[in-house]
């Protein structure tokens, strides 16, 4: 096994291998080129049809109008709204991860509690948390706190279920091995169970960053004070489709960046752990 790798490491690449590598690179480039072409084509068609009057740019907006709205960020406060949405998402996401992991740990520690909680978790998981929006606003007040609680509510139960499932399915042999050395439950958790489930943790974080954003936007729809969700609702009400489309575009970018951030964190942590 080692031999193969070392010969590859040196510069004795055979003609066949060179052709294979070139072929792979070509395929990759082709896919990327098509992806970019599709986007350019879509934007161009949108712009051209809007200018020709085939589609009504008042209703559908157009790339140039979106660009103009973006350029006017100091006037319409776009950046502030993006910042607020981003902040709320991160706080809700962070709290969801922390509290969710703490609850999962508690339920792992006490199988009795876990059995008691099981049916409630199932119902809470199936319940559309957005339905709780009005209740949350009444309870914690119509402001940023309500939005954060919504983001938290939407990601919490998923985290608990995912982590608890991961803990429960940790390799029994690894646990037995630790026990033969007289490991306490806490040691077993810290040294075996949690590290075994880092992949599960990041899987749930990747899902939750998106879910938190959903919670935040839904919260902003309801609270309607600030943020991209507010801009979308507001723009729709005053028929400023440029603002709505721009907000949706920014939301897409934000979602991608947040996901990318979690993915980057995963890479860093995994590297740190495999140090």
């Amino acid at each position: 096994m080692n031999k193969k790798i070392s010969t590859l490491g040196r510069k004795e690449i055979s003609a066949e291998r060179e052709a294979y590598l070139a072929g792979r690179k070509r395929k990759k480039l082709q896919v990327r080129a098509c992806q970019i072409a599709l986007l350019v084509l879509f934007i161009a068609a949108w712009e051209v049809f809007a200018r020709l009057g085939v589609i009504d740019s008042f209703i559908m907006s157009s790339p140039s109008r979106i660009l103009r709205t973006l350029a006017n960020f100091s006037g319409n406060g776009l950046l502030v709204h993006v910042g607020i949405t981003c902040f709320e998402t991160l706080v809700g996401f962070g709290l969801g991860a922390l509290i969710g992991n703490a609850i999962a740990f508690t339920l792992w520690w006490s199988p009795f509690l876990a059995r008691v909680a099981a049916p409630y978790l199932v119902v809470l998981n199936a319940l559309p948390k957005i339905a709780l929006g009005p209740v949350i606003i009444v309870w914690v007040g119509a402001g940023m706190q309500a939005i954060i609680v919504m983001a938290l509510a939407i990601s919490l139960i998923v985290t608990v279920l995912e982590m608890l499932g991961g803990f429960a399915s940790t390799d029994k042999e690894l646990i037995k091995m630790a026990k033969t050395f007289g490991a306490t439950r806490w040691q077993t958790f810290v040294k075996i169970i949690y590290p075994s489930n880092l992949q599960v943790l990041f899987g749930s974080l990747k899902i939750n960053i998106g879910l938190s954003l959903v919670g935040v936007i839904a919260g902003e729809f309801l609270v309607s004070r600030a943020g991209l969700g507010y801009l979308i609702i507001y723009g729709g009400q005053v028929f400023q489709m440029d603002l709505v489309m721009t907000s949706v575009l920014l939301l897409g970018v934000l979602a991608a960046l947040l996901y990318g951030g979690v993915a980057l964190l995963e890479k860093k942590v995994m590297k740190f752990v495999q140090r």
Partner: protein
Amino acid sequence: MREILRLEDVSLVYQAENGEVTALENFSLTALEGEQVAIVGPSGCGKSTLLSIIAGLEPPTHGKVYLEGEQVRGVSEKIGYMLQKDNLLQWRTIRSNVLLGLEIRGMLTAENIAYAEDLLQTYGLWEFADKYPSQLSGGMRQRAALIRTLATQPKLLLLDEAFSALDYQTRLAVTDDVFEILKSVGKTAIIVTHDIPEGISMADRVVVVSGRPGRVKSIHKIELDASGGQLTTPLQRRANPRFTHYFNTIWKELDLNE
């Protein structure tokens, strides 16, 4: 020779939803210092349960287990337990894996670390100390697992089908390795296996266990060592003409059970 392990009339009864299962019945056994005892028997005869009881992971329903004269209650520090799989933690280097037992027991002293590193050196894993388990072959991983166990300096080693996850050739080689290691440090070991030749090749005595519930059926003293006091490896022992004789005797006994 000093007696290390004594089991007195050990029984274990499991309570399951659909009734009681007697896994072990009136099981008595002793092991002397430096002795290797193999336990062979059909699958499901409670061999692994026996080791769990000796290790203190499970209390017996009846009977007593003594280690160096002290009754076993709870997991004992005097025991090193090797499982079927190496169970190395993927996210730790070999060095860090080998130190895990010491770490859990709170025995990470400079002296003990030096001993563990010494073992790595002696058994040819030193240059792999900073590698991860996935970068090692199955045989090397099993050796690392053995070092992890030996690092805590147990008085008694329990091997639970410790080689059965390896392919045949690696298995023979690792068996030789482990045997030499055991003999060189004079460790007492209880070797559970379903592989009769493996048991005969490694042990001073072979205990045949009957099918469920597990009882001692017979005990065979194995004498395959060459005269002159030189170490005879399991592979050399397999070549001894008497090996077949032992095999046939034990094989017939196991066969009669079913």
